[in-house]
């Protein structure tokens, strides 16, 4: 499956890009995250949520969408 992954905030700093496209054959969001972890090891210790097709979902959700976003919390004000 062809997937577009968007990165926000400090995650985009780690990946050094705001989005990327990749081919992925796994079933779950968590499997996609494992692939991304091996590519960007720092993701392991970063807190973030995942949105699939503009909707926040748990990591155990089945991968159905082509638009994935990794979203960290922001503290600043």
């Amino acid at each position, binding site marked *: 499956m062809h997937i577009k992954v968007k990165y926000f905030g400090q995650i985009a700093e*780690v990946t050094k890009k705001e989005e990327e496209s990749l081919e992925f054959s796994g079933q779950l969001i968590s499997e996609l995250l494992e692939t991304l972890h091996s590519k960007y090891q*720092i993701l392991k*210790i*970063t807190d973030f949520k995942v*949105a699939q097709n503009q909707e926040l979902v748990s990591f155990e959700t089945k991968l159905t969408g082509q638009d994935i976003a990794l979203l960290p*919390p*922001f*503290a600043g*004000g």
Partner: protein
Amino acid sequence: MTNRYNRHTILSEIGQNGQDKISNTKVLVIGAGGLGCPILQYLAAAGVGTLGIVDFDVVDISNLQRQILFGTSTLGKNKAKAAKARLEDLNGDISIIAYAEKLTHQNALNLFEQYDIIVDGTDNFETRYLVNDACLITNKPLVFGAIYKFEGQVSVFNYKNGPSYRCLFPEAPKQGSVPNCSEIGVLGVLPGIIGTMQANEVLKIILELGNTLSGKLLCYNALTLQNSILKISRSEEIIQSVLKDKDIFHKKVVNFNCEIDSALISIESILSEENIQFIDVREPHEEPKVESLDVTSIPLSELEKNLSKIDSTKKKIFFCQSGIRSIRAVELLQELDIQNCFSLKEGALEIKNIISNRHYDRGKTEIISSK
């Protein structure tokens, strides 16, 4: 007085009826900083009847780049009080109350009870979770905004049975894992944009106009001008777990992450120690280099691939540009069960200055003693 709100009242969507609703609403803004200033400025101008401002901090010259209610004449003054003085000049027809104190579990519930809408303009996770939980317990809508460098997030929580901030991010991240503006910098105009969006959400709630961001998180990027709106679902389980503790809420204190706190040290305290490995986790191009120390360079992004460069027999001292990445490095190694790792509070420039001052002082002493 009659003309002040003319541009509102001639809008058929607002009218005198809507303007009266604005005048009869009490809004509490937590934090009079980058977000709080534009929120307060627009809500005062719009004629929100009662505006409460909570901020214990004082105005610093580095705030003036973005905190638009302050000027050189208010340097050193309490932000809540300085904001009140400025806003009273903007609109003398409304009531403005300054709370020059820290928001705590002890004072939050009582304070929130006195207002209709709460606005979060704080700059740290501890207070954000405190504000969210207090809004849940007192059943008040929360207009949320947060910023990071060139990006912002806006939402409306606890409104009409919608989700809360904890439904999005259930727990605060570890201390030090997410930097704030004072540590990492922020584009001055960004809190202006995000704070103004928050003021807009407040007015839409009061006027019951349009669609609010309840159940949605707006993510704004000032550099790409990309706006993403992501759906958030309400988690009944998470909300009930906050509500079940409401009777002990006022007894709580903010939790700090002891493990990471104890791993933070200052360069002064270890310069005389031996058997130390200094590790710079910045990228190779970053300046200044700290030549006076024997430094192993391992960029944070490559830390896990380079564990063999870490000397297990030595005390490991990590540093970077500001002290954020070095904390992440220590956290990462703690998770991998690598012991004896510490992060310097100071950034590279400060470390360099402290060391060169020490050499200078030592030089001076030698000259004096040789006389």
